[in-house]
């Protein structure tokens, strides 16, 4: 799926973002490179403060001072967008880059009907009459699975439930068929049962329309379900990038592995969860060498002095010296034969 020879929709190369403070510049993003192909969903995961949202913000051109891009390039379909003026960027947003944020209530204007907001967005970017735009809005609402769109289009955001609101936000982001959608924690504010619906809608529409998606989340469950590839971030850098199954089942970076093992599972009973000791370093005190080395169970001398870049290994890339030393020979210990409890009961339900 990733072996497209076509131009990627999004290409971020060696992005650096700094915050100027009185005590000097803080490096928040330190050399991040990403690519997303048409129709591909790239999941970006990491703990809070890892820089995943900041990367998304930089791509949409919404970075606020004192944050600034200090080096690197962002290209949308081969065209540089990181050096555009605010006005040019404003035209690009909505038209070519759509955005979905965490809280659906704050991304909708409470004073206008959702129809008004959809029609406004469509007409800002596409030459359409009000009637045509309204028809398109209704079709869009239908596509995101909003029941009775003809009547609900004239309702206000507060008349919708959380899940329905997020559907409206997705419709709003996709209504002019942008090339790229940045979805920043789109399901975090929703219940698990509704989460699955929203992910399914997002996934289906992006497949159909060939939209590239950058899905920023801290929820590995969402990633496992929606993403084609995953980028794991740690302290402003990429720790690992690879196809979703490889990253989840055969993580190459000890951080990814620790992250995966720390998630409780219903597949087996464990008394204690595996935990990564300590916490992510603050931006002002990122350790020398690999930023993860003080917490890494397998760190050796080189990790403390030299910073690893992404190194290709099998289908993934991992920024870890272990990969180069080929010391990581053991495969991740996922139980593959454990029966799924839900498969059990499903049989019962049908019996």
């Amino acid at each position, binding site marked *: 799926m990733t072996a497209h020879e076509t131009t990627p929709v999004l290409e971020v190369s060696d992005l650096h973002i700094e915050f100027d403070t009185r005590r000097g510049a803080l490096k928040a993003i330190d050399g991040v490179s990403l690519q997303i192909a048409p129709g591909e969903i790239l999941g970006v995961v990491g703990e809070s403060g890892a820089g995943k949202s900041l990367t998304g913000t930089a791509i949409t051109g919404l970075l606020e001072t004192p944050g600034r891009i200090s080096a690197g390039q962002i290209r949308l379909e081969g065209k540089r967008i990181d050096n555009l003026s605010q006005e040019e960027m404003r035209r690009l947003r909505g038209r070519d880059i759509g955005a979905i944020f965490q809280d659906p209530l704050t991304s909708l204007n409470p004073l206008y009907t959702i129809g008004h907001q959809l029609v406004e967005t469509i007409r800002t970017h596409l030459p359409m009459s009000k009637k045509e735009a309204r028809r398109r809005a209704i079709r869009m609402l239908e596509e995101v699975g909003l029941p009775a769109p003809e009547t609900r289009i004239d309702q206000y955001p507060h008349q919708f439930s959380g899940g329905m609101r997020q559907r409206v936000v997705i419709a709003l982001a996709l209504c002019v068929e942008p090339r790229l959608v940045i979805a920043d924690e789109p399901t975090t504010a929703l219940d698990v049962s509704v989460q699955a619906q929203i992910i399914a809608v997002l996934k289906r529409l992006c497949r159909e329309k060939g939209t590239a998606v950058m899905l920023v989340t801290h929820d590995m469950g969402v990633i496992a379900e929606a993403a084609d590839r995953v980028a794991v971030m740690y302290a402003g850098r990429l720790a690992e990038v690879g196809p979703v199954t490889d990253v989840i089942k055969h993580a190459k970076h000890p951080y990814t592995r620790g992250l995966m093992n720390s*998630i409780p599972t219903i597949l087996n009973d464990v008394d204690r969860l595996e935990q990564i000791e300590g916490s992510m370093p603050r931006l002002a005190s990122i350790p020398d060498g690999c930023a993860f080395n003080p917490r890494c169970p397998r760190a050796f001398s080189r990790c403390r002095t030299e910073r690893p870049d992404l190194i290709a290994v099998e289908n993934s890339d991992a920024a870890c010296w272990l990969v180069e030393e080929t010391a990581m020979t053991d495969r991740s210990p996922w139980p593959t034969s454990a029966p799924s409890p839900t498969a059990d009961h499903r049989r019962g339900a049908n019996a």
Partner: protein
Amino acid sequence: MNMTQEIYSASATQTRPREDVSDMPSVTPVFRIANLKRHFDVSPPLLNRLLERKERQVVKAVDGVSFDIYRGETFSLVGESGCGKSTIAKLVVGLNDTTSGNIEFEGEDIATHSRQDMDAIRHRLQMIFQDPYASLNPRWRVRNIIAEPLTVFGLLDGQKAIDERVATLLECVGLNAQDGEKYPHEFSGGQRQRISIARALASNPEFIVCDEPTSALDVSVQAQILNLMKDLQREFALTYLFISHDLSVVYHISDRIGVMYLGRLVEVGTKHELFRRPQHPYTRMLLDSIPDLKMTGRARTPVGGEVPSPLDPPSGCAFHPRCPHANARCKREAPRPLHNVERGFVACHAVEEGRLITRA
């Protein structure tokens, strides 16, 4: 399977625990909650009601819930937002008054306790809140935050004894004794949650209500906190009432689980019973919605519909509009709990009538 048609009655005496359970932490319930109700009046103001003829409106946040919590176990409540799980948490520790029903704490009904009576037992019940950024006073030093229960309940005399106790508590939760001098903003989310736990432990409680203690935390930090909570439970023989919407977390930490839907418990069972042999269609639906993290190839079935408004809950079984097994009776009549498993029950017409086969 043994489909004992043991129809539940609202009186607390009929929910006696069975004595033949061996793998349970204990046979004595610490809490016995019977037919607990909490209704909130959300009517428009009197004038609007008179002039605009608006009706009185009552949200039945908790509407007739009964369950027991046994000594040393972790009992969890799960459900979607708005199902009433946090309201129960507040009722149990006395932060909210009940509308009706009983909350028996070691044989004493605390639902009708006056403030003074409550004060006498309050130090035995503690609570850990969801948001470690909001639950710690930003202007207080950590040592004062942790010492507050000690001074309020008058448990220790003298600054020296209090300081020593605070230092022990900080070390207990994996922080340094010197951290007491700092302010909450100097700590990360996970460390703040450790401080909340230390504060909860200060008064030597037997019972702690944990209301979504890890949902504001990253997974790696969540693992640390969950491990800590398990260690402390063993060390201090604590009983937990754990509230969460994350089923994987609940599976990990619980002994028994209650599933709530719109103010009612639809199913209660041991975690293995509930996860391996879920009976209620809603429980099955929730389990199906757990993300398939280990990529076992299990398709996650998107759940149809959303939770209806608690202002206007559906008739009969509140779940019937979303239930694939609903029939006319489900629309008409609320199901009564069927005690067909050890220390648990299910409230579903389809299960009771045998329309929905559960395997023994």
